[in-house]
């Protein structure tokens, strides 16, 4: 925490070394966050870049109440959502309409896959589902908060989440089954 304070102070003084240190400290994990919200690594890097520009621009407004990492992460998530809203490629898919997917699956599937594979599965969800799943399951926002962030009702958020969740579980089970088959084959 003290290190963070010093780092912030140095960044606010405009010291390039401190700015780079701050960037390097969070860039890796924040790219992971951006990766989950976008469909390609190039888009994720765009969001990361935009997010860090905001981090440095508004660093003076950071209050030392919470962790710096959490503050940076919030900025990244908000930047990612804005990016999805602005980007034409995502706009069409962010309509939050029911695509007619109603998978039935177990409630607590095995999670034998790696983080990147799980993220890739989440990225295969339609963008609306993907965003709501990320916001609710990973970031911990409530459906009311998600509704406000995305401009939808909390009921829509809830129903979309349950569908995203069910779809993901089916895919996870399929992945686990494939993994089992592959391990037996070996």
């Amino acid at each position: 925490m003290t290190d963070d304070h010093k780092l912030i102070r140095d960044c606010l003084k405009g010291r390039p070394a401190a700015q780079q240190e701050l960037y390097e400290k969070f860039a890796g994990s924040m790219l992971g966050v951006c990766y989950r919200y976008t469909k390609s690594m190039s888009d994720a890097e765009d969001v990361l870049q935009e997010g860090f520009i905001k981090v440095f621009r508004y660093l003076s407004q950071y209050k030392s109440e919470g962790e710096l990492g959490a503050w940076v992460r919030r900025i990244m998530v908000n930047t990612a959502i804005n990016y999805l809203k602005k980007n034409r490629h995502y706009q069409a898919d962010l309509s939050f309409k029911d695509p007619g997917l109603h998978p039935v699956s177990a409630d607590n599937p095995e999670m034998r896959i790696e983080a990147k594979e799980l993220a890739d599965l989440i990225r295969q969800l339609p963008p609306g589902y993907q965003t709501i799943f990320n916001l609710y399951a990973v970031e911990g926002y409530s459906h009311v908060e998600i509704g406000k962030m995305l401009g939808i009702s909390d009921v829509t958020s809830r129903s979309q989440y349950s569908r995203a969740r069910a779809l993901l579980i089916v895919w996870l089970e399929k992945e686990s089954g494939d993994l089992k088959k592959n391990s037996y084959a070996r």
Partner: protein
Amino acid sequence: MPDNHFEHKAKNKLDELKFIPSEAVWLNVQAQIKKDKDRRRLLLWLPAACLLLGAGTWYLFHGKSKIYPVHVISTLSENGKNKINPSSETVESEKNRAIAVIPTDHSASNVQQQINHPRYEPKNKRSPLKENRQEPESRKPSGANESSMILGIEGRDQKKDVRKAEPQTNAPVIIQDSKKSRDAGINPAPDSGSVARANRKISSKADSTARGIAKTGGDDNLKNSPRKKTRTSNQDNIQWGITGGAGLSSHFNRFRNNNPYYTSNYGVPGNDHSFPPEKQSISFYIGLQAQKMLNNTTKIFAGLQYSYSEVRIAPGNLVNMPAAVYAGNYSLTNINSYYLVSGTNNYNYTNQYHFVEIPLGIEKQLGGKSRFSVNAGISLAWLVAVHALQYDPQTRIYFKENSYFNKAQWNVLGGIEYRLLQKEKYTLKIGPQFQYGLSGLLNRKSSYTEHAFFGGFQVLLMRTRK
């Protein structure tokens, strides 16, 4: 917050997710941080420039008036006879106004005119003359027939008093010894109140100074002081004004002889020595200017101004890869990203330059009554902020390296001015103006020289000296 196992597992798994971003991300973030910093710096300059302009404008229209009239009205003779001095004198002074004891010769016949004068002040008990009377005889003004007009040294406060008092009555300043007035049988005039109060204030403040003057030299030293009108003529010759201009800027580029590309390829047919095309773009400047008359038709001028210029280029696409470019003196410079020239004329990048300049020059009016004048001079410019790319002809790439720029620049300037308006308080001149960078924008680290050219219209609003 979901409390389901699935969400927990997913969250824990995804929190482990990390990637290494490409270097370009940091370079772009860094570039943006610098851009923000430059913008902030510019925002810091702007209020200062506005303040300067505001002060200049205020000075132009409400600035100090350098003429403070002193009307010599009353004189007193040593034998108690008063006389109205019909002459009125204007003292032109920068800081101080002299009030002195001037001996004059008066006849008794004029005393009655003085008595009847409505603006005289008999209640002024602290007049310098009274103080003078307390001095030893040798220091007093000599001569039985000499009467006195009181002059003293007056600071800025007194100037205000004089200004306040004058418009009310357009009255002369009358400072008179009350005792002598009583001796001469003068009674207070009932309608002289406000002027008298103002004058009393002046005379009391001037009291000690007048005493000092009386002690040191008597009349002769001070007699001529009001007539030294030419003392401030040098400062009066200086005029202040606001200057501004707008036009187009373009840059002239030429390879340095020590550029390896130039030396190995120059004159070889088929080799492309030309720079990618650049497009002229806007340029403007704004600031203050002071002018000093040398004679009726010639002035010298100096100023302080902010100037901005830009040039549009077509650098091609951004490539986020390390590369090395040839700099001057056969040295290599490593860069982390660059723009690869694609050959298309897509002017998608703007080189921007911000300067603070001090122009110095001479202006000559073409004939005594002509409205036209020509000017020429030099300007010393300081590059306060830059956002621009340089070109490497060998690799045909554009890259960014701010250390290649000269901070200090010398320019030559010239133009023609036409006096569009000449009002009571100001003169407005317009005309074409050009400026060329003598020293070059880039230093010897760069493999080529770049000279900026500005051509446009200038507007000059100068305060008119009466």
